[in-house]
């Protein structure tokens, strides 16, 4: 590799990283504001203005940054930072709007679905370690709850991701089934039979229920339960360290929303409208933002307003028994679909409906 090539990679990484950081932070906060506004309306309140999350961050930056004397200071300070940074790096691997993922497009660097699954762990892990390192009983209880929640929701999440890739590897003649670029270029909806369609809907539903736990939202927010353990693992955090966690939450919401879009709704508006060049880009981005809004509305806002918090052992039970079974049902549907399609020679759903 020539030196100019390396320079190009580093420079594009620099540009891409700056762009994506800006995007993640700003839209994370905007969607946080929207979420709060809608939740307030659903509860019959007026709610804060949309820019409230930005004001919150500014406020946190002005406040004192307390490090409790029980805390292990270097771990305590580093954890929020690592969490936010690794959360932003996930955005590099996700296709946003009509564009391919930055890591795929601008650079040669690549990452696939399993990598995203693991990178998603790091922010939670950073929160857990931050909580443990603050040396407060409340924070420790919260952190261990977060860890138990992670174990719990990872089971259905793994089922969803592996099932999708497995089905895709059977029906579509593609390499790299774990690559998000492949998954979003060959949407599974059209390629499978009717039973598989039902299975896919079940998997989507399961993923919608996994998302609140991934984002520590009600009803799976027992790690942060304000009423019993006073914000749990973040109880000792204040000032700019807390702001880091606040931003991580926002970015993670965008990441999860984008991931759901890439897995299940990778459609774009521009081919349908027949747009090209800049207008196509604008249309795709707008469409992406609308999709993101809808996904967040259904997987976060509606659920968190309408349900009460679960106890931690109930969280584990919910994920390991009903939701895992649901995911397995989805997987079995996909498996059946394969046998039925090959045995009775059923065309994929897209041809059944006459769309293909």
């Amino acid at each position: 590799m020539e030196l100019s090539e390396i320079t190009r990679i580093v420079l594009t990484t620099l540009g891409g990283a700056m762009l994506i950081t800006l995007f993640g932070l700003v839209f994370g906060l905007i969607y946080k504001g929207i979420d709060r506004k809608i939740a307030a309306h659903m509860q019959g309140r007026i709610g804060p203005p949309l820019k409230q999350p930005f004001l919150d961050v500014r406020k946190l930056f002005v406040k004192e940054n307390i490090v409790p004397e029980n805390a292990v200071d270097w771990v305590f300070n580093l954890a929020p930072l690592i969490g936010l940074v690794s959360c932003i790096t996930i955005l590099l691997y996700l296709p946003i709007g009509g564009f391919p993922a930055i890591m795929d497009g601008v650079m040669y660097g690549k990452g696939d679905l399993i990598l995203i699954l693991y990178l998603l762990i790091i922010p939670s892990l950073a929160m857990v370690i931050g909580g443990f390192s603050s040396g407060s009983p409340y924070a420790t209880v919260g952190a261990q709850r977060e860890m138990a929640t992670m174990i719990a929701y990872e089971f259905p999440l793994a089922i969803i991701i592996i099932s999708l890739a497995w089905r895709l590897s059977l029906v579509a003649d593609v390499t790299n089934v774990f690559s998000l670029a492949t998954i979003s270029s060959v949407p599974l909806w059209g390629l499978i039979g009717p039973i598989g369609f039902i299975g896919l809907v079940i998997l989507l539903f399961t993923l919608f229920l996994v998302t609140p736990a991934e984002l520590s939202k009600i009803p799976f927010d027992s790690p942060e339960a304000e009423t019993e353990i006073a914000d749990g693992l973040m109880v000792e955090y204040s000032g700019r360290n807390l702001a880091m966690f606040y931003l991580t939450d926002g970015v993670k919401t965008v990441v999860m929303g984008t991931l759901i879009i890439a897995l299940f709704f990778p459609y774009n508006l521009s081919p349908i409208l027949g747009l090209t060049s800049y207008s196509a880009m604008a249309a795709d981005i707008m469409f992406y933002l609308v999709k993101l809004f809808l996904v967040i509305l259904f997987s976060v806002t509606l659920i968190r307003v309408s349900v009460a918090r679960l106890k931690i052992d109930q969280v584990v039970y919910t994920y390991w028994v009903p939701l895992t079974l649901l995911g397995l049902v989805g997987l079995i549907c996909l498996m059946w679909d394969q046998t039925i399609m090959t045995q009775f020679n059923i065309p994929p759903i897209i041809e059944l409906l006459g769309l293909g």
Partner: protein
Amino acid sequence: MISIDELFNTFNTGNGFWNPVLWLIAFVIIFLIIYIIRGFGNNSYKKGTGQTQVFLSGNPESDFESMHVKSSNLYWGWTESMKWIIDALKSIHTGNVSDYVLWFVIVMGVLFLFVGLI
């Protein structure tokens, strides 16, 4: 010897890929950006005052030893809901050498059964 080219190679698994070096570069860059942003925040607090004490809803802080959550109490929620499986596993682990050998014989027997010898 190893060329720079090889170091930048993407690790291909046949169905997916992962390039650690580029991730690391991106991570470092974003880390610097966030670190600079974080630098705008307030850095000070009052050391040694009530501020730095652990929040216990206003209760007095007890000695450190008793405030450290012991490891056997961690993951209560998980162990509680998985109790049945943990208890079953615990009862298998007797620590008795005879049982270890018994398990060996059982595994051998099961394999014999599977292969259809007995």
